[in-house]
């Protein structure tokens, strides 16, 4: 069964459209009525639970504070005003924190992609003699819950071994540790393992060296998996809170996620809610753009990373 799930996740055809309810079941009016009701109720439930909080946030981000406090569930008792979004963006430095988040995410993405592609290329295609030992050491880190690393990783960043420098209050403190994702390497290597090795042989015969093979053959063939790893890297880093909170103490460098809780006490409610809306905009946009990617392969990847 597992392998069948895996096969499906790798893009193979699903097992046909046949499900629990058969055509004969559907023909019975009682069954049909019950199922339609269940499906309708489920859709309404999902809409309220999944969209409700967001819609409320969107509404409250453009209504006055007093309305939100006194009658939080009223639609627009005293009209709405898009200027709260503008105020949030310009006057509370949300623009700066937003750009900090963007910088952090871009750097983390670059480090993650670099480590994952080069590592998977070596372990899957170049296959050095000691490759399995290294792969084993990488896989072993999957067994260690990330939280265990919190304190020692923090101390490592405070005083980087051999270099004796501190990365605290630099983006490097967030960028570099992000690369140590065994999960990225595993899925990237699995994809590389599935590439046709004859092509690499042909490239070698044509005189391509390891670098050329990597850059001009393997990477262009890996666009699908690069997309998957990228989208999850971006969303994951956008959501991160605890680690940037620890290593970026200077408010001028902090990303949105770290600033929002502090902003709450110093900002008017309507402006604050507008800020919340702004910081969810990018992840939601990415989700809507790449829905298929999320709804197909996300579950497991998201779960293991935790």
């Amino acid at each position: 069964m597992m392998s069948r799930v895996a096969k499906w996740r790798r893009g193979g055809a699903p097992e046909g459209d046949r499900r629990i309810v058969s055509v004969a079941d559907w023909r019975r009016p009682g069954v049909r009525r019950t199922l339609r009701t269940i499906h309708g109720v489920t859709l309404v439930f999902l809409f309220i639970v999944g969209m409700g909080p967001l819609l409320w946030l969107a509404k409250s981000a453009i209504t006055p504070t007093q309305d939100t406090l006194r009658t939080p569930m009223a639609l627009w008792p005293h009209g709405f005003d898009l200027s709260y979004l503008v105020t949030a963006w310009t006057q509370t430095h949300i623009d700066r924190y937003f750009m900090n988040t963007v910088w952090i995410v871009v750097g983390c993405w670059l480090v993650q992609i670099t480590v994952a592609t080069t590592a998977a290329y070596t372990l899957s295609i170049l296959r050095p003699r000691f490759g399995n030992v290294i792969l084993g050491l990488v896989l072993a880190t999957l067994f260690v819950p990330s939280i265990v690393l919190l304190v020692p990783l923090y101390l490592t960043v405070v005083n980087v071994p051999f270099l004796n420098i501190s990365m605290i209050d630099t983006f490097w403190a967030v960028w570099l540790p992000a690369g140590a994702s065994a999960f990225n390497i595993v899925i990237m290597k699995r994809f590389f393992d599935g590439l046709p090795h004859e092509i690499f042989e042909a490239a070698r015969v044509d005189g391509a060296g390891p670098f050329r093979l990597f850059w001009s053959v393997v990477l262009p063939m890996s666009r699908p998996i690069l997309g998957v790893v990228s989208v999850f890297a971006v969303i994951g880093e956008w959501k991160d809170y605890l680690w940037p909170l620890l290593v970026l103490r200077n408010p001028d460098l902090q990303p949105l996620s770290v600033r929002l809780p502090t902003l709450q006490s110093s900002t008017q409610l309507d402006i604050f809610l507008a800020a919340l809306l702004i910081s969810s905009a990018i992840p939601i946009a990415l989700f809507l753009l790449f829905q298929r990617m999320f709804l197909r392969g996300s579950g497991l990847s998201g779960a293991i990373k935790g």
Partner: protein
Amino acid sequence: MPKRRGMRTWVSRDGLSTLVFLLPLLIIFGVFSWFPIGRALVMSFQETNLVSPPTWVGFNNFVNVLSDPLFGTAVSNTLYFMLLALIFGYPIPLVLAVVMSETRHFKGLYSALAYLPVVIPPVVSVLLWRFFYDASPNGVFNSILGWVGLGPFPWLQDPGTAMPSIVLEATWAAAGGTVIIYLAALLSVPPELYDAAEVDGASIWNKIWHVTLPHLRGILLITLILQFIATAQLFTEPYLFTGGGPANSTTTVLLLIYHYAFQNSLGGDYGMAAALSVMLAAFLGIFTAVYFWLTRSWSTSS
């Protein structure tokens, strides 16, 4: 496999470039993964304060943690959290996935709606829900419940309801991911089994009970383990909702680690934090090992 050996001899002529390709992995994992893992173990037996050189203190850190009155509170709070997360969050995604897999229209809409809360940044969700949980009668949830004559409830303000409130939000934020896993697993049930069941005159309910659920047994166990591992490590939710209060009713093991290391007025007690981390890791390691044992066919099939 001669092909592979061919690649290897090619490489051995150029071991240097192999090393270059391995460098990012070796440096990043060496400095930010392998070294800190080793250090966590070493630190748990040391007294470290970053100023004076660390000294070996044997099992003192572990003894200090175990004799901390907050340790028992944190462990029982974490277990309570895991139990509540199980009650709230375990059956709902399964029911949703079974219903959703039977829809004929708007399939994409159902799963998009279910998954949407997962992509919202946790900080945003928590701050938003903290506002929803306003204990005054004008709070969002209290207004809604007021329409049907319930409440107002104290939500996060009361030691009795604080933890369930946190778990409710955490469940909302995570359930979509589990739904997607179940939807994929439901596709893998061989259709012949349903046909066979129908020949025996099985009703829809019979088919769910005797075909679908037995077939999902493996994946149900996996999501159970994943949920245990994830809930034991939640930080953002209890930290931002309540900071451990009221009256330490939501202090989890993770908040305690954070407290030891980063919130101590006398300077961080990194040794105690490391000792507690190692204990948590050992406990979770059991679950992780079972998880990888169950999913081993995924990583080897390729």
